[in-house]
């Protein structure tokens, strides 16, 4: 185990490299990559690595980058790529295809606003666009967590009972370009943690067709199976956490990260780096005697509803902070979890940091000040962060 001073982009690439090398005795590693701000450094770093029995193809588009991963995964290799924003939108068709064919590809996403009008800063709207199509989605808050989650994502995606692509998201620049100390395990440890990739339906010797036509009742059956596999993710993830802890000596973050939430009357709920800021605010307000806690949803698909429900029970007020907007509706996270609270709980949505604004502690304090006198929830509110 060594400690390196690296960005989150590099942490993702390093985790992918270790995972790639761990499959050298299996069918190897193959990846298609294409640059886009702010995930470019991830693919650049991957291209600099020597990977035994691995190949990184520098392709002409994100669409083809995912297509290469599909081909590689269909041939039984481990596959990884990284993208952002419009790159993810361009790649979306093949992300859906990878999910439909149940191929365990890991995709790192540096979240960025969709354009035009062009904007390179953080917004969760790009990844949330793929909410409904059978890809696991994690949202991370720091470099170590991102590194650990990428490693876990390989194990999770390739688990025989899961077998589907997984996205690991980090907010562009805010996290992707932040350089912090990150503990990097030895290759031998990663070899122990990640079994060799085995895609049971890969193209082999026998004649079978992957991704062919289906009639409605077959699609229905496949969706049901996919849905059931999705729902098994939290359980499988717990086992992976245990295994990770045994091998690396630290426990990767839970699907829902709770902070001083047990005895809190008011909860701040968020995804990604806003959750880290929320924990600072919780400490500050707790020092003033206010019973506030924070809940950070790390696993968004499948949504760990039962866990969230457990934490919501008995709370008076809940502020759901979204770094995204579903236009004509409100925050996506709020829409998903507002029904999980007790009937009397005030669940108020605040959209903040849309288009990459810097959400600082004072902004969260303003939201809580707005929430405090509310007896019933109002319409989703868009908070300016200037």
């Amino acid at each position: 185990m060594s400690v390196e001073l690296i960005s989150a982009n590099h942490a993702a690439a390093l985790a992918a490299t270790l995972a790639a090398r761990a499959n050298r005795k299996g069918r190897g590693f193959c990846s298609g990559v294409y640059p886009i701000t702010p995930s470019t450094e991830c693919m650049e770093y991957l291209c600099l690595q020597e990977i035994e029995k691995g190949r990184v193809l520098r392709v002409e588009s994100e669409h083809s980058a995912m297509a290469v991963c599909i081909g590689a995964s269909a041939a039984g290799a481990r596959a990884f790529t990284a993208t952002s924003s419009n790159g993810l939108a361009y790649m979306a068709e093949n992300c859906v295809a990878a999910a439909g064919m149940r191929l365990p590809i890991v995709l790192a996403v540096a979240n960025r606003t969709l354009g035009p009008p062009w904007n390179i800063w953080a917004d969760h709207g790009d990844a949330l666009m793929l909410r409904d199509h059978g890809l696991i989605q994690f949202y991370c808050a720091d470099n170590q967590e991102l590194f650990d989650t990428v490693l876990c994502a390989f194990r999770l995606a390739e688990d025989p009972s899961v077998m589907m692509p997984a996205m690991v998201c980090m907010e562009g620049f805010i996290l992707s370009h932040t350089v912090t100390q990150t503990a990097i395990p030895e290759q031998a440890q990663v070899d122990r943690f990640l079994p060799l990739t085995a895609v049971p339906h890969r193209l082999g010797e026998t004649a079978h067709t992957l991704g062919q036509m289906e009639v409605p009742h077959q699609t229905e059956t496949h969706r049901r199976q996919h849905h059931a596999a999705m729902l098994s993710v939290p359980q499988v993830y717990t086992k992976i956490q245990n295994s990770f802890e045994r091998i690396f000596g630290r426990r990767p973050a839970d699907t829902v990260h709770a902070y001083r939430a047990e005895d809190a009357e008011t909860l701040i709920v968020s995804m990604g780096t806003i959750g880290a800021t929320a924990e600072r605010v919780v400490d500050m307000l707790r020092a003033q005697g206010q019973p506030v806690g924070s809940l950070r949803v790390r696993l968004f698909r499948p949504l760990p509803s039962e866990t969230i429900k457990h934490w919501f029970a008995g709370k008076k007020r809940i502020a759901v902070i979204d770094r995204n907007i579903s236009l004509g509706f409100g925050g996506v996270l709020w829409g998903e979890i507002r029904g999980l609270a007790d009937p009397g709980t005030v669940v108020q949505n605040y959209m903040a940091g849309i288009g990459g604004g810097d959400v600082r502690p004072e902004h969260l304090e303003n939201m809580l000040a707005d929430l405090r006198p509310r007896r019933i929830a109002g319409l989703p509110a868009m908070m300016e962060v200037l």
Partner: protein
Amino acid sequence: MNEPLLCGMAQTALDRPDPLFRMGNTNCGGCGLSSLMQMLRHAVAERRVQLVIPASCAAVAGGAFPHSTYGVPTLMTTFASAAAAASGTASVAQLNGEETRVICVAGDGGTYDIGFASLSAAAERNEDILYICYDNEIYGNTGGQRSSATPAGAISANTPKGKPEQKKDILSIMAAHRIPYAASLSLAHAEDTLRKLRRALDLQGFRFLLALTPCPTGWKSEPALGMELLRLAVRSGLFPVFEIFDGKRHVVNIEPDFSDEALNMYLSLQRRFQESGLSAADLRPAIDRYWQNLRALSGRIVPARRNA
């Protein structure tokens, strides 16, 4: 190689016992793709192959899950992704020291149009892929709309008065990528086609084959006349049959007689040309220009030998 029986298409002991493209598929009667797949089976013989097929008639003809028309492991991809997905499978085969030949079978829409960027990029990277375009000059699967492979003057579902623009010269474009091998195939000339299929299967790097495949449904032609139409297209010089090595050496494989009779016959047997009133005289100048250039590139005036 001498296989006179059934123009070289007769089954022999060396042939692949299981067809690549099984009977009972949903292709229209007289579909050129079906003929191409039978020839490919013959050429593949004992070689280990995988198919990569983008959205197309070839994907629909694959049939519904869990049955498959294809007799080998096959990956169906999104419309624009065949060459990129095949880059992935071919890379993994190579990393594992496998002899698997990865073959893309894509229509003209997936090749000339929507799949062109990924095709061009895979050719530029010189991936170890055999890419076969079955060109029926139309978006057949969606009901016969024009593609950039549709020839000028042809009526299609969305060009009711005939397409005004000329067909894209995909073979020259692919040759400009300086790939090891590019060739056009006439399915009516089985011996030449099989020779080139085998050559393309065994070469390393990116190989591109273009087969003109009759589409009776889209061309509004008699299903039984497909091979005859191809003979006429080749004879008249409309569909030049040649191969290009490393983007440089051009070899003409079948010498046309450039007869207007063949050209008029070709046009009159397809209703897609009749209503636009296209005649041999309209097409001849473009054909002559193309061949003038091809003669210069191939550096010979006398007919090329058929068997290299």
